C-alpha cells in the first residue's frame, strides 16, 4: 500500500533564512549519495521526498516535507527518525526543526509527535506504479538491466527460445536479481468492496459537485484573473534546478477562495478526482499522460492554501503542455476557485486549457524545491510499467510457458 503526504510546519519568525541555508548544501537529487543528511536512500519505504519553504501573508513562512512511501505514515516517520539517529544521532533533523514554531521538545521522540501532528493527507492524487513497493520497482529495473545486458552481449542467440534460456540463466546467477521470481506482484486490480465504495463515493461527490457548481457559477465568472508574467528571478531560480536528470519535481502553493460555497465545491471536486483515479487510472498512466510518478493536492490546515506536489518525467514545459492539451478538465477540477486562476466554466472548462495564462499561473505559484530525493532515477513511468510486464512474463517463462513475445518489449 502506498501513502503520500506532506508535513507542513510553521517556521519561527525570521528563521526562514536559516532553514533555507540548512537545506541549501543538501544534494538536489539524493539517490545513493553519501553526503545526504537525511539518509533518504537508507529509508526503505521511500519513493520520493522533497523539502521546500513557502511564505504566507498571514502565517509567515512554513516548511513543507513531502513523502511518497510504502506502508503506513507512522511506520515511515519512525523509519525517517531511525535513519536520522543512525546517521548523526538525529542532530541534523533536530537542528532543522528547532527553527519551527511550537517545537519545544528537542528530542527525536518529541520530533516524532511534532511531525505526526503536522501531517497533511492529500485531498486527491495519483500514483503510477499502483501497488508496487520501492523494492519491487528496483528489482524489476534490475531484471530489465540483466535482460538488456544479456541480449546485447556476445553473439545474438539463434532463436527466441535460446534467447529466453540465456536470459533466465543470467537472472538466476546475477547476485542483484537473487530470488527475482519469488517476489510477488500485488497487481493493480481493485477489490470489489473498495470498488463499490469508490463508485458510490464518486456518485455522491459528482452530484454534490453539480449542485455546487451551479451555486458558485456567478462567483466563478466574476472572479478576477491574474495575468501577470512570472517574476523573472523566481522563474530563473526554478529553471536552475530543473532537468538535472530526466525526471523533475514541482511544488506549487496557491491561495484559494475561502467562502463556504467554493470551499465545498472544491471538496466535491477533489472527492470526484480521488474516486475516479482509484477506479480508472490504475495502470501506470493518467489517461494520455504517461509521465507522472506521484502527484498530490493538499490543503494547509487553515484551508486557505492549496499545495500541489508532483514527481514527473520530462521537462516542466512538456508536463504543463500535457496538462493543457490532455487533462485541462481534471486540472480545472483541482485548481478552479484558486485566487487569480485563469477563468473557468463550471470548474471544468477554460482555465488550464488557456495555455499561456495557465502556464504563467503555474509558474507564479511555484516555490523552489530545496531538496529532492528520487529512489529510482534511472527509470521512467513507462520503463517501470514495461519492467513490471517483463518480469511477470519471465516468471511465466521460467515456469514453462513457451511464449517469448516478451522479447518485443525489451
Amino acid at each position: 500500500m502506498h501513502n503520500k503526504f506532506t508535513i507542513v510546519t510553521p517556521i519561527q519568525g525570521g528563521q526562514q533564512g536559516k532553514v533555507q541555508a540548512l537545506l541549501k548544501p543538501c544534494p538536489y537529487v539524493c539517490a545513493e549519495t553519501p553526503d545526504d543528511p537525511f539518509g533518504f536512500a537508507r529509508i526503505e519505504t521511500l519513493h520520493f521526498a522533497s523539502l521546500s519553504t513557502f511564505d504566507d501573508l498571514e502565517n509567515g513562512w512554513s516548511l513543507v516535507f513531502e513523502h511518497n512511501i510504502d506502508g503506513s505514515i507512522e511506520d515511515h516517520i519512525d523509519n525517517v527518525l531511525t535513519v536520522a539517529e543512525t546517521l548523526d544521532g538525529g542532530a541534523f533533523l533536530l537542528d532543522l526543526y528547532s527553527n519551527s514554531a511550537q517545537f519545544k521538545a528537542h528530542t527525536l521522540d518529541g520530533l516524532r509527535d511534532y511531525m505526526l501532528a503536522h501531517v497533511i493527507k492529500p485531498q486527491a492524487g495519483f500514483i503510477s506504479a499502483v501497488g508496487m513497493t520501492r523494492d519491487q520497482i528496483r528489482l524489476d529495473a534490475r531484471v530489465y538491466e540483466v535482460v538488456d545486458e544479456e541480449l546485447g552481449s556476445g553473439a545474438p542467440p539463434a532463436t527466441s527460445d535460446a534467447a529466453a534460456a540465456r536470459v533466465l540463466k543470467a537472472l538466476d546467477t546475477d547476485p542483484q536479481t537473487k530470488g527475482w521470481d519469488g517476489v510477488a506482484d500485488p497487481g493493480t486490480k481493485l477489490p470489489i468492496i473498495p470498488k463499490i465504495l469508490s463508485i458510490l463515493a464518486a456518485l455522491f461527490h459528482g452530484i454534490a459537485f453539480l449542485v455546487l457548481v451551479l451555486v458558485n457559477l456567478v462567483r466563478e465568472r466574476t472572479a478576477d484573473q491574474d495575468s501577470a508574467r512570472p517574476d523573472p528571478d523566481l522563474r530563473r531560480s526554478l529553471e536552475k534546478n530543473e532537468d538535472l536528470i530526466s525526471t523533475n519535481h514541482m511544488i506549487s502553493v496557491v491561495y484559494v477562495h475561502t467562502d463556504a460555497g467554493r470551499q465545498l465545491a472544491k471538496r466535491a471536486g477533489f472527492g470526484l478526482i480521488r474516486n475516479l483515479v482509484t477506479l480508472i487510472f490504475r495502470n501506470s498512466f493518467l489517461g494520455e499522460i504517461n509521465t507522472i510518478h506521484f502527484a498530490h493536492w493538499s490543503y494547509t490546515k487553515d484551508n486557505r492554501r492549496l499545495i500541489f506536489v508532483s514527481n514527473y518525467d520530462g521537462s516542466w514545459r512538456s508536463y504543463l503542455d500535457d496538462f493543457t492539451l490532455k487533462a485541462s478538465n481534471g486540472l480545472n477540477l483541482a485548481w478552479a476557485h484558486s485566487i487569480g486562476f485563469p477563468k473557468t466554466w463550471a470548474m471544468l472548462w477554460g482555465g488550464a486549457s488557456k495555455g499561456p495564462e495557465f502556464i504563467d499561473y503555474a509558474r507564479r505559484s511555484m516555490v523552489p524545491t530545496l531538496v529532492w530525493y528520487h529512489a529510482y532515477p534511472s527509470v521512467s513511468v513507462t520503463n517501470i510499467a514495461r519492467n513490471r510486464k517483463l518480469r511477470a512474463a519471465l516468471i511465466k517463462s521460467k515456469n514453462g510457458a513457451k511464449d517469448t513475445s516478451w522479447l518485443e518489449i525489451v
Partner: protein
Amino acid sequence: MTETDLTSSPDIQGIFFRGYVKLDQAAYGFFRVTDRALFQDWLSGMLKEGAITSAKDKQPADNVVNRMNIAFTSAGMSTLLAAGYIAESYDHSFAAGMVVPERSRILGDTEANDPKNWDWGAKQDEIHGVLMSFATSKDIAEERLLAALCQVNGADCVHRTFGHLEDDNREPFGFKDGVSQPIIKGTKRAKKVARENPDEARVSIVEAGELIMGYPDGTGEIPRSPATSAGLDPDGILDTHPEWKDRRDLGKNGSYLVFRQLAQDTVGFWDYLSETASGEDGDTALELAEKMIGRRKDGEAMEQDPAKKPRDNNSFDFSKDRAGLQCPIGSHVRRSNNRAVNIKSEKLSLDVTMRHRILRRARIFDDDNGQTGLQFMCFNASIVRQFEFVQSAWCNNSFFQGLQKEVDPIVGTHRPAKLGAPEIDRYTIPQEPYRKVLKKVPQFVTVKGGAYFFLPSLKALQFISQTVKANADKPAL
C-alpha cells in the same frame, strides 16, 4: 486574417518565407551596436534603399544577386530601444539569451556542447544582431555584407560566418535536408497541398500564428508579442498591442529566429557506421545511418506504402509503425516531429505535435579549421514552446517514449552517469524478435555557436530606426 496570402507580405522579412535557393551563398555578420543613434541612422538608410528584403520581393530574378535580412538579440533590442525595451513582453528564453546556465541545460548545451567550447556566442550580450547576406557567390555575399557593416554604422562586426546550399539540399552527412516543413494555412502552397494531398496537409499545415506573430495560432489565440512604449511611436508606425492597449505591437509580422552552428563529424559518423554495421543485407553503414536519421538518404520516408506512386516522403504519420520497426522511435526525424504517435490517441498526438513545429532554414558551413556542419536556423512564435520544447522534451529526453539511456543520435547530447542517472549514449533499433542496441555511440554533432534573435517586421525595423529621434522629440512614457 490568414486567408490573405502572407507569403507576399511587404512587411515580413524575406528569409522567413524564402530559402533563397538561387542565392546559394550566404554571409552572416554578427554585430554589436556601439552608437545607438548612428546605428539607427544606418538602419533607416538601409530601409530607404530597400536593402532589407521583404517577402513581397519574390524569388530573385536573374539580375538580382543579393538579398539581406536583419535580426536582433535581446541585448540588441534592449540597446536599441532603451526604455522602450519591455523585457516581460518577449519570450522569456529570448530575453534571457541562449547561453544562461538554465537555458544551456534545457537545450543540452552541456558536456561537449557546453558554450565554453563554442567559437562564437558564448559571451552573453556580446552579440546584438545578425545581418544576413545571401548572394549568388560567396564573394558577393561577403562584399555586400562588409559594404553594409563596414560603413560608419555605429556597430562593430563581432564575428562572421559563411554558409552555402548544396545541390539537392544535402546536409554534410549526405542526407537530403529540410524535407518536412510546416506550411502556413491560407497560403497558396497550403491550398495546393490540402487539395492534392490531404494526408500531407494533415501533418504539415499550421496556423500562421504558430510561426509568425500577429495572427491566430493553433489554439485560435493571437500569440504573445513583443511590446514597446507608445511614446516612442509618435507617427503611429506600429499597431496597438493586442494585450496591453497602452503599448504598441512590435511583434506583428515578426518571428523569433534561432541560430545554431552545429559542427558535424562526417568522418567519425561514417567510420563508426562502417565499423558497427555487419555489412549484411539490411545492416550496411548506409542502412544504419538511415535508421539513425529516420529517413532514406534521398529524403524518402522509412515508412512507405509500396503501392503508393509517386513515392511519398511527407504524408506518413508513424501510426502504422508505432513500434518503430521501420523508423526507429529514437531516430532524429521521429524525435523532432513524432506526428501522430506521441501518445495513444492519434488525433491528440497530432494536436500536441503541431503545437511544437518550427520552420527551418539551414545552410552548410565549412570553416577555416576544417570543420563542416549546419548553420541551423529556425523560426517560431515562441522559442520556449517550440524550439526549446523539441530540443528538451523530445531530442534530449532520455525517457522519450519509453526509451532509456539514449537521446537523439544526431542532435542529442551524450552525458556521463550522474546524480543516480545512468550514462546516456546508446541508440536502440527496434527489430524482430528483439531490438538491437548500439552502445557508446560517439557524439557526431557538436554545437559551436548560437544565439536567439528576433526578426522584426519591416515596419518594426522602421520603428526601431527612429526611436532615438522620437525619444528626443517626445520622451518615452
